[in-house]
């Protein structure tokens, strides 16, 4: 909302400082986005008079204009058609600061030779002065503009550009802003009660109005003016509209726009002669019907949209935009002026469905008071009479099926202070509310007030709203600061939170860089990265994606990680370890999707020798597995690993991570096909852990085990077994002997001295008892039992 300060001063007699006002408005909830000095580019521009217009000797479309600037005469070249001798115009001398009509930048005017004639200055258009985008003709000033006066002095203006919050329709009007400003300055705004003089026939004999949808139209007021002459508005009116950022069109339309800016109530002027049957019907649209708005665009309507109709057809989309068929034209002589109240949700629905947001709809959808229709209608009627002539019919149409007086709000003095943490007296509270023009009466009991807000403050309905007003007017800065004094509520922290934190810390400890990818992805990326089973999960799609790249929600972290690795590889030669932790979205049969929290890491080797004393370490399956083992060990989890069959990974180079019988993750070398799809041409290893599933399986209360008191004895063995025997099988057998407290494999060998189809596995067994020191004989006895059992179960032969 652009508010010219001079307009504001019509209602506020107290002097004020702009900077102080900006601060007060901002603190009280209406942020002043900027203070625009309309004259900032008017240095060197003054009121001039055209004394002569001659043709340009070398160009048909240009003229030579002699301008009197009061002190001297200047000859300038002008391209505008509307320049004429005798006009008062805005004259820019050489050296003036102006807005370039083509680029919009501020430039300094230089003397120039145009088609062979020297031009000493310029006659300005509205655009060059920053008044509007109009660049076709020059700005013609009123005849009484004083010759030679700097334009800044004559029509300079300071404009406040306000960011209006959705709850304050009143701030979308100059009188509303004036009332707000007055309250903040602790004075009062002088807003006159408008009226007009009706003559001749009564409007009730001329027009009928019928509201068929009272739920969407609580009030419809109208006046009728006959014998108007459509033409240009007077300068003062044009100037105000321009300064408020509204383009002047014609006197009648300008008058309705002016009153909308002044009171916040949108008005619509119909050409009365185009209204069939002199009848207005307010009703829902015919579903699917077509309607051409005054911007000459045909729009399709739904049965939920509210329309203004005459006896035969639809003539306006209520509160949003008028119709082409009833528009004011140059030939209009009778004007039916509408000032109505519409349901805000209905207007918002219609505006957003049609993609139409107008100055009117923005006001209606914020919820205007039905009590606003009459003052605005009276003011607009009298203004049209003033600027377009004609005669207004006596009286007004005023159908008000939904008009209810405000019942008033009971406000407890103690609750005001209880909510704000203040100690405001009844007087302070009353005075604050009176400043915003509330009517204050006695409440139900002595500690209460009955507050009736002024009609233009349709946002004040609850006690809390009144309390905010008190806080605003007294100033948020005057509310004290205290710390929460009550005891801290009992807490039952979600164990998942600590778990996530532990995972994040461990991953960085393992050297992984955290990345965050979008939750949105696309089916192509998912298709490239996922395995068969994952692809069968149809991801959740967005109804209207921003881009096809982000059409659905990720069901896996894999595509993001692979793409991240590939994009970093373009400039990163070294080894990379990246991880992401976050939700994936798995559609459920019914209701909201499941959002398991996943952890996924990706790693690859260095492409180059990175260190002066070390060869680059080549990552492989066991690098990745070692990291997962370290992670799980820290979490107190004993995982099992089984060969996996995920076709996103190379077959034979992948393992499922199993904890307590549950599959919680997978580790493996990314399949060549997948890697290639992401333009990765090197071995890449990835692991994925379902943290939501893993968390309940972790040991949260670890128990202390006494430090062993007796020495341990170590024995190494090497056994030869079938190549198909796994480490796990050997370990399972050895684990049956409680005196073996630790078993580690330190070599796996095939080749010379080992028969075809066999392999040698070398283990280091640690024997220890918690009751005594073991003798060599005792250890040997157990070791022999171990070897015998390995032979029985797995056909293992001791290698000598």
């Amino acid at each position, binding site marked *: 909302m652009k508010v010219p300060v001079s307009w504001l001063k019509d209602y506020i007699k107290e002097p004020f400082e702009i900077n102080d006002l900006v601060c007060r408005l901002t603190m009280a909830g209406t942020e002043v986005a900027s203070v625009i000095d309309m004259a900032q580019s008017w240095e060197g521009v003054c009121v001039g008079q055209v004394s002569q217009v001659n043709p340009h000797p070398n160009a048909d479309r240009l003229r030579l204009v002699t301008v009197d600037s009061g002190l001297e005469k200047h000859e300038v070249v002008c391209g505008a058609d509307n320049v004429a001798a005798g006009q008062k115009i805005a004259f820019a001398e050489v050296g003036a600061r102006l807005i370039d009509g083509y680029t919009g930048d501020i430039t300094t005017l230089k003397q120039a030779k145009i088609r062979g004639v020297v031009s000493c200055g310029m006659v300005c258009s509205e655009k060059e002065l920053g008044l509007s985008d109009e660049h076709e003709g020059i700005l013609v000033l009123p005849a009484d503009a004083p010759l030679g006066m700097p334009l800044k002095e004559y029509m300079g203006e300071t404009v406040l550009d306000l960011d209006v919050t959705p709850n304050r329709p009143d701030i979308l009007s100059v009188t509303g802003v004036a009332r707000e400003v007055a309250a903040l300055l602790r004075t009062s705004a002088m807003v006159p009660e408008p009226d007009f003089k009706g003559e001749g026939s009564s409007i009730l004999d001329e027009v009928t109005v019928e509201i068929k949808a009272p739920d969407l139209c609580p009030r419809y007021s109208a006046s009728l003016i006959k014998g108007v002459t459509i033409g240009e508005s007077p300068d003062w009116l044009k100037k105000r509209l321009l300064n408020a950022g509204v383009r002047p069109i014609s006197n009648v339309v300008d008058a309705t726009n002016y009153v909308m800016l002044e009171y916040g109530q949108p008005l619509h002027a119909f050409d009365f002669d185009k209204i069939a049957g002199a009848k207005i019907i307010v009703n829902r649209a015919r579903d699917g019907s077509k309607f051409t708005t005054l911007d000459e665009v045909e729009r399709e309507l739904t049965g939920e949209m509210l329309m203004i109709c005459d006896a035969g057809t639809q003539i306006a989309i209520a509160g949003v935009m008028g119709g082409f068929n009833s528009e004011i034209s140059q030939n209009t002589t009778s004007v039916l002026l509408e000032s109505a109240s519409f349901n805000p949700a209905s207007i918002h*629905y219609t505006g957003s469905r049609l993609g139409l947001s107008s100055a009117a709809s923005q006001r209606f959808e914020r919820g205007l008071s039905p009590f606003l229709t009459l003052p605005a209608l009276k003011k607009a009627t009298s203004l049209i009479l003033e600027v377009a002539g004609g005669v207004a019919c006596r009286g007004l149409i005023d159908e008000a099926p939904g008009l209810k007086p405000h019942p008033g709000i009971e406000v407890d003095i103690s609750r005001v202070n209880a909510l704000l943490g203040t100690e405001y007296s009844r007087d302070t509270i009353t005075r604050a509310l009176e400043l915003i023009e509330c009517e204050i009466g006695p409440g139900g009991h002595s500690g209460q007030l009955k507050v009736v807000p002024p009609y233009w403050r349709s946002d004040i309905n609850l006690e809390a709203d009144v309390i905010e007003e008190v806080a605003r007017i007294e100033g*948020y800065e005057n509310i*004290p600061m*205290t710390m929460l004094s009550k005891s801290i509520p009992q807490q039952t922290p979600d164990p998942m939170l600590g778990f996530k934190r532990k995972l994040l810390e461990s991953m*960085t400890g393992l*050297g992984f860089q955290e990345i965050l990818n979008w939750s949105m992805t696309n089916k192509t990326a998912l298709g490239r990265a996922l395995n068969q089973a994952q692809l069968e999960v149809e991801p959740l799609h967005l109804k209207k994606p921003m881009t096809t790249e982000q059409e659905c929600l990720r069901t896996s972290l894999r595509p993001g990680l692979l793409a991240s690795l590939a994009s970093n590889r373009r400039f990163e030669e070294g080894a990379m370890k990246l991880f992401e932790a976050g939700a994936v979205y798995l559609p459920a049969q019914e209701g909201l999707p499941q959002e398991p929290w996943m952890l996924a890491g990706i790693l690859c080797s260095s492409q180059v020798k990175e260190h002066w004393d070390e060869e680059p370490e080549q990552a492989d399956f066991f690098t990745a597995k070692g990291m997962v083992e370290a992670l799980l060990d820290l979490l107190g989890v004993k995982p099992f690993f089984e060969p996996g069959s995920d076709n996103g990974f190379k077959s034979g180079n992948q393992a499922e991570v199993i904890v307590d019988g549950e599959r919680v993750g997978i580790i493996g070398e990314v399949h060549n096909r997948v890697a290639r799809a992401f333009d990765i041409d090197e071995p890449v290893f990835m692991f994925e852990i379902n943290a939501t599933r893993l968390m309940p399986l972790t040991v949260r209360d670890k128990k202390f085990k006494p430090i062993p008191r007796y020495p341990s004895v170590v024995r190494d063995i090497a056994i030869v077994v079938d190549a198909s025997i796994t480490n796990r099988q050997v370990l399972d057998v050895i684990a049956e002997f409680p005196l073996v407290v630790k078993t580690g494999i330190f070599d796996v060998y095939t080749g010379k001295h080992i028969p075809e189809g066999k392999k040698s596995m070398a283990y280091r067994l640690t024997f220890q008892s918690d009751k005594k020191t073991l003798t060599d004989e005792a250890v040997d006895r157990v070791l022999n039992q171990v070897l015998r059992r390995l032979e029985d179960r797995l056909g293992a032969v001791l290698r000598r």
Partner: protein
Amino acid sequence: MNEQINELKKEALDSLASVANRAELDAWRVRYLGKKSRLQAILKSLSSLPVEQRKTIGAETNRLKNELENLLKEKEAAFEEASSRAQSSRDALDVTLPGRPSTLGRLHPVTRVLQELQEIFASMGFEVVEGPEVEWDYYNFEALNIPKEHPARDSMQTFWVDAPSGDDDREMLLRTHTSPMQIRVMEKQEPPLRIIVPGRVFRYEATDATHIPMFHQVEGLAVDKGITMADLKGTLYEFSRRFFGPERRVRFRCDFFPFVEPGVEMAVECAVCKGKGCRLCGQSGWIEILGAGMVHPRVLEAGGIDPQVYSGFAFGMGIERIPLLRYSIDDIRLFYSSDLRFLRQF
């Protein structure tokens, strides 16, 4: 005899002074302290001397022997020291060579800011809770006093999810803020409540240097008997003091959010211009940090809490803005570019 000893001493000392290396020192040792040395000869000849002389000459000779032996040890030690010094200067490490790499990974700057915020609020008794990122219209809007067709919805452009509606014609969406958890927590727990909710949120916005369709927020909610706006100001001021530092001034102004009344916006003094006004803060001197307010009575009711008995405050802040301002990052998209050249800077 005495003269002989003195002569020997002088000769030995002079000779020692010119010894330049181990080999010469060895030769010197053999010559003056060896079995065939003159000193030994003197000692052997002692027995042939009269008792009187034997005593004094013997003592004198032994003193000389000890002296020479000590000098020998000193000289040996000096040679040892010199040679080891030479040795180590040959073998000295180039300590400016880089160590063998042991890389620690880093957390994403957004994760770290979230952790920092959680710590601050946890120390003030706020419990961390998390909620679903895919939500119902009801929790994201309706229950928060933002009915259908409310203009406030226009400022929170929404990604709607293509999924069947739930009960009561509830539509599915990507949450536009972390505020839905206010309602979910109130539904489940009785007051007193003191929670914060970190998480991802989504807005239907075209991506550019200052806009991204997904970002993070932290929501806060405190509900109890007698919670005041003064508590809101105090709590958030304390947060700012710890997070931004005690030297940054804090401003609370009126603002509108449908789920609070009175509504509050908190700003901190611009760190660049110290409140004087600059390009970063749009000449205002203040950087908006969060929206807050006293929980709207309709929101308390929607959560099943009686607004006549309880009151509360809520706040919500965007996270990406904080590292953006702290590190003067000029493009918000970098956070989600997974570019290591960016991420390794933090």
